């Protein structure tokens, strides 16, 4: 994830922007020359116009806010439960031995596959979507926390023993800070997952949000609105990832020499 983050000199930024502009120009040309049918590929101007219209009349703003709310709330729940459960499992070698195989088995299960079960239990509504978002994005945090708690340095354990710390004190004062890099990386991954599942949930359960807006636009062949929605979703994903990367850097500053 951080592999692409290399230091870029100023000349590099200009070149980089030029390449992006070239791609946009190619899009402009392809849509105006109708190399690709306008039904699928709207012109950049039409996309911008749809974006502007949606943002000014508030429809896209409302949808974005709904999707962001769903994503953030699900992510917060996932982080809370993921860290709590992960700490409980990760702190004890016995719990890990008995539970970890089950966790590893559930990890590759597509979160969206839980959705039919959630629909049968909760019905087609917002709380169902929130449950699936939280459940699906809990795994990255949970497994990262288990890993972080399991790999606390033995020396630190000895220090805690020498200080006669209780298990709860040990978790809070030693294990949690030392597991923080793992946990934050897990939380970043889980933010990506929560946006994806929020969009899927909106599409399936027809809950208001960008997912539903994009699907409706496609069904009525309004390609420019579809593209406007995709652009906004990309922007949300970009912003969420950038903010978390920044937070990670700030929170982990103590680790660097």
């Amino acid at each position, binding site marked *: 994830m951080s592999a692409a983050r290399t230091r870029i000199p100023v000349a590099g930024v200009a070149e980089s922007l030029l390449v992006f502009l070239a791609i946009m120009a190619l899009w402009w040309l392809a849509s105006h020359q109708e190399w690709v049918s306008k039904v699928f590929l709207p012109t950049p101007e039409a996309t911008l116009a749809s974006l502007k219209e949606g943002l000014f009349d508030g429809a896209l703003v409302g949808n974005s806010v709904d999707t962001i709310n769903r994503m953030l709330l699900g992510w917060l729940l996932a982080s809370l439960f993921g860290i709590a459960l992960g700490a409980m499992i990760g702190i004890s070698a016995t719990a890990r031995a008995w539970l970890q195989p089950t966790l590893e088995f559930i990890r*590759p299960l597509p979160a969206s596959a839980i959705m039919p079960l959630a629909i*049968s239990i909760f019905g087609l509504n917002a709380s169902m979507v929130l449950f699936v978002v939280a459940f699906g994005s809990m795994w990255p945090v949970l497994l990262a926390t288990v890993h972080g708690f399991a790999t606390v340095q033995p020396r630190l354990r000895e220090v805690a023993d020498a200080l006669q710390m209780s298990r709860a004190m040990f978790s809070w004062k030693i294990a949690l800070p030392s597991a923080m890099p793992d946990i934050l990386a897990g939380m970043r991954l889980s933010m990506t997952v929560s946006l*994806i599942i929020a969009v*899927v949930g909106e599409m399936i359960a027809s809950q208001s949000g960008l997912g539903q807006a994009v699907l409706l636009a496609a069904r009525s062949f309004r390609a420019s609105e579809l593209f406007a929605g995709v652009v906004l979703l990309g922007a949300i994903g970009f912003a969420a990832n950038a903010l978390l990367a920044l937070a990670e850097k700030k929170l982990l500053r103590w680790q660097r020499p």
Partner: protein
Amino acid sequence: MLATLLRWLRPFVFPAILIGVFELYTRRVAAYSDTLAPPSAAVRAFVDALFQGDILSATGFTLMSAGIGLALAFVAGAGLGIVLGLSPRAARMSFFSIEVFRPIPSVALIPLAMLVFGFGVSMEVSVVAFATFWPILILTQAAARQVEPILLEVSQALQLSYFQQVWKITLPSMLPRLFVALRQGVAIALVVAVTVEIVANPHGMGYAIMIAQQSMEPALMLAWLFWIGIVGYVVNELALLLQRCMAQRMGGRP
């Protein structure tokens, strides 16, 4: 003897308890429910579906779409990744565009794929390919950048052409890492394929579980859920095995 047997059984204890509680709950408390069924009924539904051939054909469709999408993404992503990894200039130039397109959630493209391809294999393949392209690109780029500089100097001394250098020096030395990228791709491909089927595409395992829910067949729905879990686990383990095998044979770090 007994101790080894116990250790071997240990991973299954917790799932067994869960399934047992669920079985009791659905038999006693939620009997005659339209939404939940006991696991034993799910097993029966699974066997029925297996004999009717539904399981095999749906699983085949999902795995095939995921496989084709992953293959396309791997060729494109690894190819571009090697070029960008070998040339810092090309990496700088594409940096901004990659960072702009990469965060687009793959599922947002499902409606677009529907519009362009209609339902079927191609729409699913296209979404899977988009989703797996980015992680493969990033991981390959990092792998190509980490090729020993001495090896590249050797290739310069030998006056190898660009393609010869890629084929004879870069590719072999980054092979283990290439398989790490492939394994990441496998994990994502299957998840995205099932998601596309659940959201839109009327084929495959995702559609089967959706239909089982909509037609109020909770036993069949649970059967599909377990099956999707098992398929996902087996496919991921196989990919991990392949990655470890390659790492061992090529002598690289895993």
